[in-house]
């Protein structure tokens, strides 16, 4: 049982997704129960898997022939198989995705009441979860592409799910078009690499890649596609559309998909391409892109009038922080301040996911209570929705990185490492946090404070079942804020070590040193 965890964690959501339409025929209550039990099981399997990785090291799970020669003639030394390879970073990302998916599912169950087609909704949500987890676990380039596409297709279907509003459709097709083009470029570069090395396995590729022109092209295509999927400026425009127009549970899962693309970026850069490929301008360019992302995200959020869109632009800036840490680590190598920067970046992946998730859940509660997302028509909700206001206050402090919330710890790591490379980097990072603080305070005022509006007098806190996921995320924010060293020791450091030890990743598959 234990050794099949990596397969189960993908198979279970897939199975649930395809069972959903059948289950839905029995009764809607049973469907909810089933969805809840399944997400709970996935979460338990995920935690067991992470525990397994932390106690035993890299897990290798083979679909197909474990040894070369079992399916092909013995003279042909190519194993026909797909492997899942889970190291510290993969385990970390599994935790992030599971937190988001679990809270999203929890929130979705009471959020949708009269909406039609909920079978398909849950089916797509589980499919999206399978796609995200697959991206994080797989050790195979083509497999990564397939899971990337599964995630994109189900995510865009989910974004466009509420077809009553025209904006959701627009956001859905934009997301689908741009991510399918991105995925095609990814596939093209997988083709390039396969043509050159006859290998699709990440470890095999990592071993054989050299500094040729084709490899550089492949790296560039992959980087472009994954940077786009991670919402890095100037390719970030899909992100506010998608985040803002999707319903909050979907947004949470799309955040997880974005973070999974960031994981892909880390994996490609540090494990596969890092030591062998030498593109001199690349780290500087990545840092420049991250600064542009931070700047655009933080300034654009100030002029938004739609609640979710303002939060989404702040999410763009947060992705910029992560990439800033990654870029610094690329520039300086994963040692000294580069290692601290990478630590900060990876820690920020978790913090960003939780903070943004909570913000969108709050926005969802506000929408549910008022059916309004335009901040000009909102106001004075703190009297009637006290719990929501307090959770928003927590999320506000966390995502603008005020002490003692979790955002401060990871941003501190980023500030105090990037300045060593160039002081301007951390100056811009600090400035952008203040801008983000400003937008969140503005949101707080225009939604929760001020005189009470007459048409919003019957706004209420959402039902208890929806408060629980918000409570879970708030508690996580405060816990990670007060005991950041716990999270760093237990989760972030294994992830960073697995990136430092790229040889370990390779030798777990191929053997030898």
């Amino acid at each position, binding site marked *: 049982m234990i050794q099949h965890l990596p397969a189960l964690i993908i198979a279970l959501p897939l199975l649930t997704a395809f069972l959903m339409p059948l289950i839905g025929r029995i009764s809607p209550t049973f469907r909810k129960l089933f969805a809840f039990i399944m997400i709970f099981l996935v979460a338990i399997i995920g935690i067991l898997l992470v525990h397994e990785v932390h106690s035993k090291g890299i897990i290798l799970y083979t679909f197909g022939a474990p040894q070369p020669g079992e399916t092909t003639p013995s003279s042909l030394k190519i194993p026909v198989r797909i492997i899942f390879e889970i190291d510290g970073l993969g385990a970390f990302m599994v935790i992030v995705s599971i937190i988001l998916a679990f809270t999203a599912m929890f929130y979705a169950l009471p959020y949708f009441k009269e909406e039609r087609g909920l079978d398909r909704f849950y089916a797509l949500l589980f499919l999206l979860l399978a796609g995200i987890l697959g991206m994080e676990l797989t050790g195979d380039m083509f497999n990564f592409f397939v899971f990337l596409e599964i995630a994109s297709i189900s995510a865009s279907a989910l974004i466009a799910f509420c077809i009553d509003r025209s904006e959701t459709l627009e956001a859905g097709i934009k997301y689908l078009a741009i991510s399918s083009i991105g995925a095609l470029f990814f596939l093209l570069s997988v083709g390039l690499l396969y043509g050159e090395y006859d290998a699709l396995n990440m470890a095999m590729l990592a071993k054989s890649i050299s500094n040729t022109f084709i490899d550089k092209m492949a790296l560039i295509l992959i980087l472009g596609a994954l940077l786009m999927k991670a919402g890095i400026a100037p390719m970030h425009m899909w992100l506010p559309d998608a985040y803002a127009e999707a319903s909050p549970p979907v947004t949470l899962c799309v955040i997880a998909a974005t973070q999974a693309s960031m994981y892909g970026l880390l994996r490609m850069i540090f494990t596969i391409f890092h030591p062998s490929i030498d593109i001199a301008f690349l780290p500087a360019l990545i840092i420049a892109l991250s600064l542009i992302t931070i700047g655009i995200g933080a300034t654009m959020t100030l002029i938004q009038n739609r609640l979710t869109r303002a939060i989404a632009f702040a999410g763009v800036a947060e992705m910029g922080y992560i990439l800033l840490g990654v870029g610094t680590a690329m520039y300086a190598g994963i040692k000294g301040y580069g290692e601290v920067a990478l630590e900060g970046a990876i820690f920020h992946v978790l913090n960003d996911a939780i903070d943004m998730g909570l913000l969108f859940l709050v926005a969802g509660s506000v929408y549910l209570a008022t059916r309004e997302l335009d901040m000009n028509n909102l106001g004075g909700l703190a009297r009637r929705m006290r719990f929501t206001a307090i959770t928003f206050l927590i999320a506000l402090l966390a995502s603008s990185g005020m002490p003692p919330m979790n955002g401060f710890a990871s941003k501190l790591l980023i500030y*105090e490492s990037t300045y060593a490379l160039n002081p301007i980097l951390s100056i811009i990072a600090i400035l952008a946090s203040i801008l983000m603080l400003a937008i969140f305070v503005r949101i707080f005022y225009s939604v929760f404070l001020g005189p009470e509006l007459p048409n919003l007098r019957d706004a209420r806190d959402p039902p208890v079942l929806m408060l629980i996921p918000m409570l879970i995320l708030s508690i996580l924010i405060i816990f990670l804020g007060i005991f950041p060293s716990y999270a760093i020791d237990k989760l972030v450091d294994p992830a960073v070590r697995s990136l430092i030890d790229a040889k370990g990743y390779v030798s777990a598959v191929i053997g030898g040193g």
Partner: protein
Amino acid sequence: MLERIFTGSGFWNPLIWLIAFVVSILIVLILRSLGRPGFKREGDKTKPFLCGNIKDIETISPRSENLYWGFRESLKGYYKVMERFHSGDIRDYIFWFIFVIVLLFLMEVL
């Protein structure tokens, strides 16, 4: 678990910070309790400090889009460019994606 974070250039220990913060909040609360609590509800004391004949306050309090006017005003030029950049046109989304890839490609080749 109770360790401070050491970044190589600085420290951060949230627990100690929290203890100090709680203590100082207690001090401030003690200080605050020295003051006169509450107030007599009479006249227009609790109405907002405004002049003129104002019926309902929610019509005159600034709405969300009026906030940070000074900031937007002084960065007008920047925001004009940015609004044109975020055109919402799906082709621009694809164009910028291709642009970055071509830029990377050209920087590598040249």
